[in-house]
């Protein structure tokens, strides 16, 4: 397949950690458009920010390293962490007592992931870490 791509290096508007679940692809696309992103480093992995919420593990280190790579290579100053409803990496919604319990638990995990990323990248000036919960009816910012 022939296709011309730009060789120009870029600055990333954000490093986005998002789940590879195809059901939320359109939501990501709409979100990027709404935010006016020209370039992002999209770390698309099972569970999105899930690994960042757990205890120290090789998976957690791996995902942290992805974010650090984006910051080093493309100067990302905004980190976006996402978890979503009915995620296969958690065993789906059936792994939680009910819909509210799922939302509460995943919001808690997003806070943990946010704290970890802030701590690990404390030396990067002007960095913001935003956390989002994706539902089947839209995207929600998780605020304290």
């Amino acid at each position, binding site marked *: 397949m022939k296709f011309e791509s*730009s060789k120009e290096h870029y600055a990333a508007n954000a490093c986005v950690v998002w789940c590879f679940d195809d059901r939320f692809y359109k939501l990501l696309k709409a979100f990027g458009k709404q935010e006016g992103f020209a370039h992002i480093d999209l770390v698309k992995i099972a569970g999105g920010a899930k690994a960042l919420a757990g205890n120290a593990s090789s998976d957690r280190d791996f995902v942290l390293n992805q974010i650090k790579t984006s910051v080093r290579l493309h100067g990302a100053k905004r980190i976006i962490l996402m978890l979503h409803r009915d995620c296969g990496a958690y065993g789906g919604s059936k792994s939680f007592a009910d819909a509210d319990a799922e939302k509460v638990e995943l*919001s808690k995990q997003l806070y943990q992931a946010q704290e970890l990323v802030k701590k690990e990248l404390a030396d990067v000036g002007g960095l913001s870490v935003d956390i989002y919960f994706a539902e089947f009816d839209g995207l929600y910012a998780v605020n304290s």
Partner: protein
Amino acid sequence: MLETVLELESSEEHYTAWACVFCCFEDRIWKLRNEFFRWLAQRFGMEHLDPISIAGGPMALAEDNPMRKEFALNEIEISRMAHNTNRVILIFHTDCGAYKLMGKTFNSCEEEYRHHEAASLRAEATVKERFPDMEVERYIADFHGLHRVR
């Protein structure tokens, strides 16, 4: 507290993924990747993919680093379990920043292509060792297109 950022209805239907695709998170090859996905849809009727994007893409499957390799293999396992995936597509690309961060440089385009070709074979072997029934396709992306490695 949750604050609405945008409203958009997404399908709750579970799907079967035509393939699990490893590609670098490098934004410069994103349009090419999307064009490839459109071609897959037109040519094969592909409806859903599980695109895994990490720095270096399938490089993690070709390295000797067990942590990175296991992470990538686990992505395939989740795709297989959640979306019945039976095909893995590996897309390496030229001028990859992840290689540069590792201190790996190439003296010529030919050397870089040979390196990615060999790495794609190692990555395929890694996938096949864990998932013997998984079909594997290997590609190299450059700034002029996408090339199947056979």
